[in-house]
């Protein structure tokens, strides 16, 4: 993105994709639920398996109790030997069958629950990707890219886990606790209530703990990202750090950020540990009571030893799921916040899109016309960036735009492919308002060479052919020859198959600009814009590229934005822009004759050494 646009848009790092207000929480959860229900078969399998698995699981303690009682009945009845042993086979085989079956159903429950989540995640991924690709520049100016990436990773995960960790678990817990409570209380109300006494305490503590941990976790991530930033900036700016011998200062900065994060990491342990320990204690406490009362009843003959074993086994069985109530509550909370953020993105209006009756652009003469165009960035109030811009360019003509940083030069050309929509006036191509034609055909007709264009993590060849992935090899090579890049590429070990490092980091600024120029030369636009795109290229190479550009521009409208006046003095018309208005226009000679701002700038560039500091001292 050009420096112009950066200067003009306030890149507020605090501009997030806002989460929906709290009142809409339920509707968010319902919306996720509906997305899950779009896979009815898998949902039905998961829920069905959950119910049956819970019932089977509840049978196990009873079978154990029966088996234990069986031995006592045999002893009491005086039955020994094979007959008695045979009586044990029934509960034993039943236990084996029930356990194995329960295992199978739990597998089905978990698998289908996860499958539903992953399906939903897949759909959301596509929807996000599609939305992000289509949202207009003004959205991307406003929203930090890091926030969008988080959205696509963490928030998506939060929504994905909703079905398996929130919905299915509610069903599972309700079943287990319900059946358990019914069985135990109907067998022995007092002992049943005692046995279940740990449930509310653990449910409460685990929910509170998990919610607290979640808050701490978010906070910790925040502090860790500050720490990460301190380290990253230190390493990326290592030359500055060394140049100022600021290592001690940097170490202190690191220690501060590090301690901040460490304290919270300790706090996390301090929240987690006492609570889990207390939960275990309350469980064992209830178990101790059951044992005490149970044994007393055993002595009094009011209870069979098998029933006591059933109670104890039931409690053991309930312990784990009850502890997970906290996780479940957390899963709801997480799905709610993540979902709101995600839907906040998906529900964004795509402001720049095809009009309902949009038609394909028809290029006849290839004339571009700005008619009284004005523009203000959305949300920037009335601060107009461009005011009453009018000009016209025909095929084969070159228009140059000159002006100070922030004067609106880049914004002006960003309006042509509708990266932003004009707020007043019209832009036409061959007489067709650009808002009345389809975006795809419009953007095909316009190519912009950006000052700092994005290179993709793939081969050089793929990067050059980015706008025309079907191109023949010869065309790619010809384009890179025009951009004075071909020989350099051939010198690389892997030639055109060389991978461009992350965000093109391994190429120099000039090489990246040349690659961007080559990429544009692959296209067949009617209007081509060079937005300060040769600034980092040395003068000699630029001279050779300019020759190629001249050939390329022959039957197109060309717009050049440049700092070095030498690169635009051959233009058919030069527009001098100041504060969003065209203040001077004409050819190089005409503007020099005017003795206005353009001439002043020209003089400044001609004598760069004259009023320079170094010249003031020493030089004769």
């Amino acid at each position, binding site marked *: 993105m050009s420096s112009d646009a950066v200067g003009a848009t306030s890149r507020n790092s605090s501009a997030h994709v806002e989460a929906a207000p709290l009142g809409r929480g339920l509707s968010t959860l319902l919306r996720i639920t509906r997305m899950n229900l779009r896979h009815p078969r898998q949902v039905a399998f998961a829920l069905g398996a959950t119910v049956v698995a819970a019932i089977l699981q509840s049978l196990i303690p009873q079978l*154990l109790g029966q088996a234990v009682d069986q031995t006592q009945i045999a002893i009491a009845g005086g039955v020994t030997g094979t007959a*008695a*042993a045979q009586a044990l086979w029934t509960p034993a085989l039943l236990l*084996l069958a029930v*356990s194995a079956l329960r*295992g199978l159903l739990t597998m089905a429950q*978990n698998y289908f629950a996860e499958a539903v989540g992953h399906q939903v995640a897949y759909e*959301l991924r*596509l*929807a996000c*990707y599609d939305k*992000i*690709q289509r*949202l207009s*520049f003004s959205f991307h100016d406003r929203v930090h*890219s890091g926030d969008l*990436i988080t959205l696509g990773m963490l928030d998506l995960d939060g929504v994905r886990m909703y079905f398996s960790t929130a919905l299915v678990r509610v069903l599972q817990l309700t079943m287990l606790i319900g059946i358990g409570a019914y069985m135990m209380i109907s067998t022995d109300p007092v002992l049943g209530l005692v046995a279940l006494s740990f449930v509310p305490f653990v449910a409460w503590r685990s929910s509170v703990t998990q919610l607290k941990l979640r808050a701490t976790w978010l906070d910790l991530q925040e502090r860790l990202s500050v720490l990460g930033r301190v380290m*990253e*900036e230190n*390493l*990326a700016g290592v*030359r500055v750090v060394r140049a*100022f*011998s600021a*290592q001690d*200062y940097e*170490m202190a900065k*690191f220690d501060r950020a*590090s301690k901040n994060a460490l304290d919270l990491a300790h706090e996390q*342990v301090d929240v987690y*540990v006492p609570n889990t*320990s207390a939960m275990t204690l309350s469980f*064992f406490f209830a178990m101790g009571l059951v044992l005490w009362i149970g*044994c*007393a009843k055993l002595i009094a003959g009011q209870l069979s030893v098998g029933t006591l*074993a059933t109670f104890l086994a039931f409690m053991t069985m309930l312990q784990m799921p009850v502890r997970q109530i906290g996780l479940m509550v957390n899963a709801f909370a997480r799905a709610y916040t993540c979902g709101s953020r995600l839907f906040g993105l*998906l529900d964004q209006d795509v402001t720049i899109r095809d009009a309902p009756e949009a038609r394909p652009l028809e290029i006849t003469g290839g004339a571009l016309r700005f008619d009284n165009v004005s523009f203000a960035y959305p949300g920037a109030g009335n601060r107009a960036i461009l005011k009453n811009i009018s000009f016209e360019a025909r095929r084969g003509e070159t228009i140059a735009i000159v002006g100070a*940083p922030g004067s609106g030069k880049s914004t002006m050309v960003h309006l042509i492919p509708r*990266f932003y929509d004009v707020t007043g006036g019209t832009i036409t191509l061959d007489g067709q308002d650009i808002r009345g034609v389809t975006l*795809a055909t419009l953007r095909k007709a316009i*190519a912009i060479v*950006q000052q700092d264009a*994005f290179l993709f*993590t*793939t081969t050089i060849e793929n990067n050059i052919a*980015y*706008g025309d*992935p079907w191109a023949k090899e010869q065309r790619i090579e010809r384009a890179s020859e025009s951009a004075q890049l071909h020989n350099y590429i051939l010198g690389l070990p892997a030639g055109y198959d060389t*991978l461009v490092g992350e965000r093109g980091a391994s190429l120099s600024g000039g090489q990246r600009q040349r690659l961007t120029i080559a990429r544009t030369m692959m296209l067949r636009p009617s209007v081509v814009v060079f937005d300060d795109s040769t600034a980092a290229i040395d003068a000699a190479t630029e*001279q050779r590229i300019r020759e190629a550009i001249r050939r390329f521009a022959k039957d197109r409208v060309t717009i050049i934005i440049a700092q070095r006046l*030498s690169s635009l003095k051959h233009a058919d018309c030069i527009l001098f822009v100041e504060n969003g208005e065209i203040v001077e226009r004409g050819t190089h000679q005409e503007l020099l004759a005017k003795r206005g701002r353009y001439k002043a700038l020209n003089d400044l560039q*001609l*004598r760069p050494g004259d009023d*320079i*500091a*170094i010249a*003031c*001292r*020493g*030089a004769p």
Partner: protein
Amino acid sequence: MAKGHASEPEIEPNDDGRRPPRAVVGSHRIEEEMFGRALDKNVMRRIWDFVRPYRAMVIISVAALLIFIGTQLLIPLIIRYAIDHAMTPAGVDRSALLAAVGAFALAILGNFGASYTQETMVGKMAVNVLFDIRRAMFGHLQKVSLSFMDKTEVGRLMSRLQGDVNSIQEFLETSVYSVGDVALLFGIVFVMLYLDLRLGLLTLSVLPALLIIRIVWLPRAREAFMAAHETNSVVNGALAEAIHGVRTVQSMDRQQVNFILYDDKAQADLRAHLIAARYAQVMVPIVDGLTGLAMAVVIVAGGSMVMNGRIDVGVLVAYLFYIQRFFDPIRSLTLQYSVMQRAMASGRRLTDVLDVKIEVQDKPDAKVISPEMDGSVEFRDVTFGYNPNHPVLRKISFRVNPGETVALVGPTGSGKSSAMALVHRFYDVQRGQVLIGGRDVRDLTQESLGRQVAMVLQEPFLFTGTVFENIRYHKTDATRDKVIEAAKAVGANDFIMSLANGYEAQLGERGSNLSLGQRQLISFARALVADAKILVLDEATANIDSYTEMLIQNALRKLLEGRTGLVIAHRLATIRGADRIIVLENGQVIETGNHDKLMAMDGLYSKLYNASFDDIAEVKLDISPH
């Protein structure tokens, strides 16, 4: 919703209807091995160095862990005792019941205390070690040579500082827990055999089955998990790329092609996750089935023994309790193996960073250079190369007098920037000497040297924080007035005041909300606040628009007042007025003199000068009488 939203895109017709041959989204390179040898002695020793300060914590937590395991083993035994005494045919033995309840209470209190102590200790110890390792590494990176930093990507170092340290933390935590797992396993086996040898042996016979299944299962499952992990980072990478490159994507109209390509990756990710889920879940029925089998064995065999009077019914109940905990240790121990391998791979990468040699170091008797020194710079027969066999500077000698401004000129690769780096002792010379204020830089402390040599580099680098913090930088004692004064001196005050919060304005990522020129003005102000005797400008005005350059030229005047200046500039016009110009070629000084003298010599300088002015020279004639 998703499917409907993402309108089915169609790729435009092409030669053979296939997907575009040259289009990919979010390519992904697997560059680091995930798993190392399970036990690497050298790595273990290095990790232990970091654990050593906390060894008391380790000992206490292992002790607490053993107590914790002990109470867990004890509880079923107490239950057995209580039931057996309640069941004695003699009937009532209330004192035994009370004793059991008392023992139970003690056991659970012990359990509580032990689990509290051990988890707190382990959690904090592991996190402390993580932060210590990270600090050691970060501190080390502050000292290693710039050539190491130049050839190592920041991202790579960051993944050491953020990712690899985490696997060490995980390793430490699970190490302690695996001690517990082993203890629990042996404890259960021992108690079961102790309660009844025959029943114990019978029940334990299902254990090897699980062990074998786990060993067969683990490598396959791990492969599936890794694949899912891999596809996940591929889709996330592709998404990040779409976000960062969205402007290019839209202007090249690649949305539809990219969407289809992304869909491929997202589908692959979905498939990989479903496969991984299958692998994860297949263990559930196996463990449950084996548990059921063990219970059935206990009931049939144990039940018969109860009926025969060989064992008490309490033993049977206790057995049923142990079986429920039976398989846990095996499950976590097999997982521990992967954690360990991962930690060793990470550990080796960490050791690699920690072992990078520090080349430039203060001598033990290094002196502090005082701000009162004269500010002269002298190169005496300096030979230097990043690779000793290919020197970039060869026997260079020159002297810059106090207060003088000297420009270094030469084609790319002539050694200008390397010479500048030697002034600051970023590297050590191979032969010869660099003297600052008449003293060899190797005899001075780097810290004091840095205070007297300020540098402004081609790429202005700003830190996250306010404008004020960036200008003040490490001079934390600089007052606000001093900072504002510096900003005014370099002509930055005006634009700073136009920012929403003036000097308190938060800079975006690397100052992205400022233009390049504005960022450079801030770094000039920073150099002014640093108040050094010697100022090095390394291409500080390249790539800057004419408007800002005008401001910067004025800033330079302020900066160089009363200082020694060393300047490199690409655009020769900017250094035309230097006191002296030294022309370098292939690491050697070939011309020296002021502008006029060098132009008259008609050598390399005049050739370079004319080349860079080629363009505007013609215009110069008709307007500038000068």
